[in-house]
C-alpha cells in the first residue's frame, strides 16, 4: 500500500517538476519582455523603475508603468486564458483541433466590433470611433461574444449529442463571419483598415484601466477551469461514461462553456482575435507533463500559454528595430512549427 502511494507520487512528480520549471520561466520572460521595445532601457533602469520608482528616471517609469508592464501582463493573461479555453474545448469535444474560438465566440466578438466600426462608422463618419474609443470596441466585442454564448447555452441544454453542438458552433461561426464580410464589403477604406487592424490582434492597446477589467474577467474564467477539472477528466471518456459516473452533463457543459466564453470573449474584446495559441499550447502541455489529468493540465497550460505569449510578444517587437509585427501572425508562425513537430514526433496526437 505504502509502495503504491509512493509510485503514484513518482508518476505525478514529472508533471509537478515541469510545472515548476515553467513557473520559473514565466517571470524570467516577463522581465525579458519589459526589456524589449522601440526605446532601449537597460535592465538596471527597469528594475529601479519597478522597485524604487522615486529615484528612477521619470520618463523610464512612465514607459515601464504605462506601456511595458500593461503589455506584458496582457500577454500573460491572454496566453493563459486562450490556452485554458483551448484545453477545455479539446477535452469536451474530444477533438485535437478544437480551440477557444470553436464555439463562435470570436466571430461573435468580430460581429460586435464590425457593427461598431463599420456600421456606425459608415453612418456617422470616423469621428465616432475616437469618441467611443477603445471602450466602445471592448463593449461591442463583449456584447457580440455574450450573445453567441447565450445561443450556445440554449443549444447545449437542448441538444444531447456533443458532435451536433460542435457542428452547430462551426456553422454559426461561419454564418456570422459572412455577415462580417458583408459589412466589410460595404464599408469605406479607412473603416475597413481599422477593422482589419483589430482582427490582427494587439497586446499593446490595453491600458492600465482596462486591465482592471480584463484581469478579474480572466481570473474568473481560470478559476472556473480549475473548478471543472474533475468534469474535464470525465469528459475524456466521452459523455456516456461521464453520465454513468454520475456527472450532470448539462451542468458540467454549462460551467465549461461559460468559462471558455468568458476567457476567449474577454481576450478577444481587449486584444482582438489571437489565433493558434489556444490550439497549440494544450498539446504542448500534454506532451511535456505526460498526463491527461486536468488538475495538472490546467495549471500547466496556464503557464505554458503565458510563456508562449510572452515569447510571441518579444518576437513581435523585432529586437533592434522600431517596427512591431501583428501579434496574431507571430503566434501562428511560432505555434504552427511546434504543432507540426509534435504531430511528426508523436503519431498519437490525432487523439487527445
Amino acid at each position, binding site marked *: *500500500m505504502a509502495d*503504491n*502511494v509512493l*509510485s*503514484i507520487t513518482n*508518476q505525478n512528480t514529472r508533471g509537478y517538476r515541469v510545472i515548476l520549471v515553467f513557473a520559473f520561466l514565466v517571470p524570467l520572460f516577463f522581465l525579458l519582455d519589459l526589456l524589449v521595445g522601440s526605446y532601449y532601457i537597460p535592465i538596471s533602469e527597469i528594475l529601479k523603475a519597478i522597485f524604487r520608482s522615486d529615484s528612477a528616471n521619470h520618463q523610464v517609469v512612465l514607459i515601464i508603468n504605462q506601456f511595458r508592464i500593461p503589455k506584458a501582463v496582457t500577454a500573460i493573461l491572454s496566453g493563459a486564458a486562450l490556452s485554458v479555453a483551448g484545453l477545455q474545448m479539446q477535452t469536451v469535444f474530444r477533438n485535437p483541433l478544437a480551440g477557444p474560438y470553436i464555439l463562435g465566440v470570436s466571430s461573435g466578438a468580430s460581429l460586435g466590433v464590425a457593427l461598431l466600426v463599420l456600421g456606425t462608422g459608415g453612418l456617422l463618419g470616423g469621428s465616432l470611433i475616437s469618441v467611443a474609443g477603445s471602450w466602445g470596441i471592448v463593449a461591442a466585442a463583449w456584447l457580440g461574444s455574450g450573445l453567441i454564448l447565450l445561443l450556445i447555452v440554449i443549444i447545449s441544454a437542448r441538444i444531447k449529442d456533443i458532435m451536433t453542438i460542435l457542428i452547430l458552433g462551426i456553422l454559426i461561426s461561419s454564418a456570422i463571419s459572412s455577415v462580417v464580410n458583408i459589412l466589410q464589403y460595404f464599408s469605406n477604406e479607412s473603416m475597413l483598415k481599422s477593422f482589419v487592424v483589430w482582427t490582427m490582434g494587439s497586446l499593446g492597446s490595453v491600458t492600465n484601466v482596462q486591465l482592471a477589467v480584463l484581469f478579474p474577467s480572466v481570473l474568473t474564467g481560470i478559476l472556473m477551469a480549475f*473548478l471543472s*477539472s*474533475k468534469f474535464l*477528466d*470525465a469528459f*475524456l*471518456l*466521452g459523455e*456516456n*461514461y461521464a*453520465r*454513468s*459516473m*454520475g*456527472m*450532470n452533463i448539462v451542468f458540467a457543459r454549462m460551467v465549461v462553456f461559460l468559462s471558455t466564453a468568458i476567457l476567449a470573449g474577454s481576450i478577444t474584446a481587449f486584444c482582438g482575435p489571437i489565433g493558434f495559441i489556444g490550439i497549440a499550447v494544450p498539446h504542448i502541455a*500534454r*506532451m511535456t*507533463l*505526460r*498526463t*491527461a*489529468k486536468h*488538475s495538472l493540465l490546467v495549471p500547466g497550460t496556464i503557464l505554458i500559454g503565458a510563456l508562449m505569449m510572452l515569447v510571441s510578444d518579444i518576437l513581435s517587437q523585432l529586437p533592434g528595430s522600431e517596427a512591431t509585427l501583428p501579434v496574431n501572425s507571430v503566434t501562428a508562425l511560432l505555434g504552427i512549427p511546434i504543432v507540426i513537430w509534435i504531430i511528426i514526433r*508523436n503519431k*498519437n*496526437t490525432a*487523439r*487527445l
Partner: protein
Amino acid sequence: MKSDQQDKIIDLSNASIGYLGKSKAHKIIKSAISVYALKGELVAVIGENGIGKSTLLRTIAGFQPYVEGDFRICGKLISTYREKELALLMSFVSTEIIKVSNLSVFDLVSLGRYPYTNWFGKLLDEDHYLIEEAISAVGLQGYEYRMVNHLSDGERQKVMIARSLAQNTEIIVLDEPTAFLDLSNKYEIVHILHQLASEKEKTILFSTHDLTTAIAESDRLWLMLEDSVEQGAPEDLILNGNFDAIFHSKHLYFDREKGDFRIRKLTKKVAHVHGEGIAMDWTIKALSRNGFEVVNLTDPADITIIVNYQEWTVIHLTKQIKFNSLLSLCRYLNSLER
C-alpha cells in the same frame, strides 16, 4: 424461491424501449419485455443486429428513458433515480475503445471513483486501495503506469472493466465488450466477468454476438427475438428450441449438439468414411464443407474414403487415389463435381 422478489436486481415487466416522441408518437424498438436478473448473475443479451440490444442496455444504464412498463433497478423504478444515485448502483462499459494519449491505467481506473471523490477528485487511501484491487481483479498488476494508448485492445478493455469495478457498483452493464477482440481475449474477458459475478456477487449484464462464450460462461441469457424476449439458462433455451429463432436466415441453423450456428450446406453427394479418432472427425467436417454427406456404410454412396493417420485413400468408381492432406483431398473432390 422466496427471496427471488428481493433479489431481482434488474427487473423489467412488460416494458417497452425506444425513443420518446412528442405527444405519444413514440418510436418503439421493442415492447413487452419481461425479463430479470438476480444478484450475482452473469447475464448475456443475445440477438440479431438491430434488434434493440444496445437500446435495451442504454435504457438500463439510464442513458435514455424507457417508453412504457415497469422498469426497476434494485426494486425502484429507474426513472426515480437521480444520476448520482444511479452511478453508485450501476457502472457502464461501452463498446467504444477509448484512445486518450498520456492517460495512465491508474488514472483511467481512478475515474471509477468519480461518484465518491470530492469536487476536485482527490483520491483518499480507500480510493487508492479500491483502484489497486480493481486493477488486480482484471489481472493487470504492474500495468498501473502504462499509458492506455500503448495497450492492446484486450488489455484496454480489461482496464475499462477495472474502471467499472473501481466504481464499486452492484450492477455492471457492458455493451458488446468483446466486439473488437480476438478469440482468446473474448474468452478471457467473458471469463473475468463470470468470476466477478460469482465471486464478488455482482450482477453483470453484457451484450454479445459470440454465442459460444455466452453459452459457456453466462448464468442467464436474455434472448431478443423478433416477437419476444426469452430468458433462461443457456442450456434451457437450447433445449426448448428458442435458439433457432435468433437469426432469420435460411442459410444458418443452430447445431444443438455443438451449441453454435452452422452454415447450411446443400449436400449433393454421399460418402462412406472408414477410420477412427480425431482425424476421422475432421475429415467428416472437411467433407461436409465440400458438399458431401457422410452416411452409414449400409446406405449406398458415391465415394469411399479411408482415413489412416495422415493419409487419405479415395475410392471412386474404379480409381483409387492417395492423398497426404485434406486440402489436396478436397481439391480432388471439387474437381470431380465439374
